[in-house]
């Protein structure tokens, strides 16, 4: 019988105890692995956020006041000026349009005549809404204004129209944005789910990229056509922005949007990407100076996300500490179990020594026995982790980002609608889909992470088993045999 076979046999010597030990180890190992998976997932998300949002600055016309507009529009010349600022790697201009179909325009006109303008859910403050131009379309919005929008609409209607018993339903416009590159208004690459991009975004085109829900609402697919301002456009691709409002939008090339708005050369916003996070503050100051404080407002999306991202950072730290703690717990459990087993089998160790077993053989036998227990605990623990890690990561993130998101959400109320946030719909929340982005961490148990975690547990098990076994094996055999 080999040492391994003897160790396996010893591991199952007392089946009830083995089951209990494996169960306890499985919980500790499962928790450790779940924390490791959560840690890796959050680390990946933090890196992604830093890479995609952390280096982006947004330039809006100075004095923009939400949907009320204000300030002089940005121009192509200002975009060229921005591009010349040190550490600026790219400048992408956008031109925002608000699209409504004929029925909605008619309903809205009637409402405004009676109510003095919609309040709705904080107003239609979208990206660059202060300079967004209303344009007709054949499309129907994919987002329902909802109960709140209609209740506010009814309230404002009743104040302005005495004797009016019903108010027309408030509707959400479709956001169309002309872009100079295949990025959204936060500077993040568009996630195309079908079709292709628009090719050269600096040239006029009849192609358009539609949000998935907007396409679905209007029964459109790649190759379908629709109209904006009686001009026919073809769906070149579909994208998924990850949010309902983000997907109630479409993208055109920048010149096309400017032509549709009859405002060639005019920009709603500029998305400026800085070459590294370290240079963001300096670039922001230089950009503001170059454009002039009376002409443009430079805002930093990263500032608004900073609290939330630092929350994720703390989740990462918490999950790492929890991983280490769970690993240490697993190690302590193994150590205590092995101390118990070694003490229980001191006489056996004495006998093995008496018949000529070297210390390393005795140590190896107990290490293998511990590894058998840990292997069983790891299998069960990995299964536990694969089910629990997603929930644990979500719970950690939601509990840690809720406060930050609420804070940054409130801060966003006073910002112009054009601040990066994608849809920028009700309330002009500067984070826009960022909350969703922050909490959409996918805790997947990658084989490498699981293998790394289990290797760490095995390492701890080897030490936990070796220490008591070797300490006992170093004793003179007679001391153990006589002690019994």
């Amino acid at each position, binding site marked *: 019988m080999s040492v391994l076979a*003897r160790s396996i046999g010893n591991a199952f010597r007392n089946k009830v105890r083995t089951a209990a030990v494996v169960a306890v180890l499985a919980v500790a190992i499962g928790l450790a692995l779940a924390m490791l998976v959560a840690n890796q997932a959050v680390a990946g998300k933090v890196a992604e956020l830093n890479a995609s949002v952390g280096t982006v600055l947004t330039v809006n016309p100075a004095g923009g006041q939400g949907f009320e507009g204000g300030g002089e529009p940005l121009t192509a010349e200002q975009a060229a000026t921005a591009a010349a600022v040190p550490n600026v790697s790219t400048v992408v201009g956008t031109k925002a349009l608000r699209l409504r179909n004929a029925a909605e325009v008619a309903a809205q006109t009637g409402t405004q005549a009676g109510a003095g303008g919609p309040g709705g859910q904080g107003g239609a403050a979208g990206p660059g809404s202060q300079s967004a131009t209303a344009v007709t379309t054949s499309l129907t919005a994919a987002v329902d204004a909802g109960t709140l929008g209609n209740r506010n609409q009814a309230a404002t209607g009743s104040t302005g129209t005495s004797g009016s018993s019903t108010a027309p339903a408030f509707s959400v416009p479709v956001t169309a944005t002309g872009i100079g590159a295949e990025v959204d208004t936060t500077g993040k690459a568009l996630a195309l789910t079908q079709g292709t991009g628009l090719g050269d975004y600096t040239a006029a085109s009849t192609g358009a990229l539609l949000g998935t829900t907007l396409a679905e609402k209007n029964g459109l697919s790649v190759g379908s056509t629709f109209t904006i301002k009686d001009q026919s456009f073809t769906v070149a691709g579909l994208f998924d922005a990850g949010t309902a409002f983000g997907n109630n939008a479409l993208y055109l090339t920048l010149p096309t949007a400017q032509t549709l708005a009859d405002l060639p050369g005019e920009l709603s916003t500029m998305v400026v990407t800085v070459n590294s996070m370290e240079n963001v503050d300096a670039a922001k100051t230089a950009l503001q100076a170059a454009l002039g404080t009376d002409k443009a407002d430079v805002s930093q999306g990263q500032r608004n996300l900073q609290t939330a991202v630092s929350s994720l950072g703390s989740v990462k730290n918490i999950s790492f500490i929890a991983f280490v703690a769970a690993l240490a717990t697993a190690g302590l459990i193994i150590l205590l179990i092995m101390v118990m087993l070694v003490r229980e089998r001191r006489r056996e160790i004495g006998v093995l020594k008496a018949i*000529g077993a070297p210390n390393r053989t005795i140590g190896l036998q107990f290490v293998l026995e511990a590894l058998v227990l840990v292997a069983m605990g790891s299998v069960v623990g990995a299964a536990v982790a694969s089910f629990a890690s997603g929930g644990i990561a979500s719970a950690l993130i939601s509990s840690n980002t809720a406060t930050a998101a609420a804070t940054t959400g409130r801060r966003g109320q006073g910002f112009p609608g054009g601040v990066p946030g994608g849809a920028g719909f009700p309330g002009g929340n500067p984070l826009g889909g960022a909350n969703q982005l922050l909490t959409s961490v996918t805790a997947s148990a990658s084989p490498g992470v699981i293998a790394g975690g289990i290797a760490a547990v095995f390492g701890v098990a080897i030490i936990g088993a070796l220490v008591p076994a070797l300490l006992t094996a170093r004793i003179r055999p007679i001391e153990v045999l006589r002690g019994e």
Partner: protein
Amino acid sequence: MIEVKNLVRTFKSGDRTITPVNDVSFELEQGTLASIVGKSGSGKSTLLSLLGALDKPTSGDVLVNGVSLAGMPDGQLTEYRRRDIGFVFQQFNLIPNLSALDNVMLPMEFAGIRKAARQERARHLLEQVQLDPDKHVRRINRLSGGEQQRVAIARALANAPKLILADEPTGNLDEQTGEHIIELLSSLSRNHNTTILVVTHDRSLANKTDRRFRLQQGQLTEEAARSRIAAASPA
């Protein structure tokens, strides 16, 4: 050849100092079958532990073929036990969750003997101690005391040691099996030149050994072995 020189072993028990082995000296030629008799607690098992390098003496030395055990490091002592010593413990000290065969194979495994060879030798040894073949693969805790004693003796013989130290080897055996074990030990000492030192209460066993010692209050005295005296006496 075993040489024991002024061997002393003391223990502390509270304020008292106990000396179960007190200035013991003797020599045993290779191939001798010897016995030590004495009352319980007279230090017989302690002396056996010192000879088998399970314990270290307070003073004095044991020399095996001229090599001192006193200055030997632990690793060499382990090798000495594995290669040169076979123990038969009073309490058997077998590994309870292993079979009789596996128990006998253990010392051979530590000595690096291949599995097939050790399996064959283990079966042969178990047959020599008259353990039924159907009990070879039975777990130790399912064997009777006498059967366990036979497995313990077979294990002691596993690596064909030069010295066998046996503590009450027939204590748990019936008279017939005890006789057989005595014959086996005698045959080993004569035919295989194995030195055997037996601690026993059994006078009949002691009388069959070449040399007989008595341990009393830590002091060892030699009594002449009757069989040898009888064999040497002129008619």
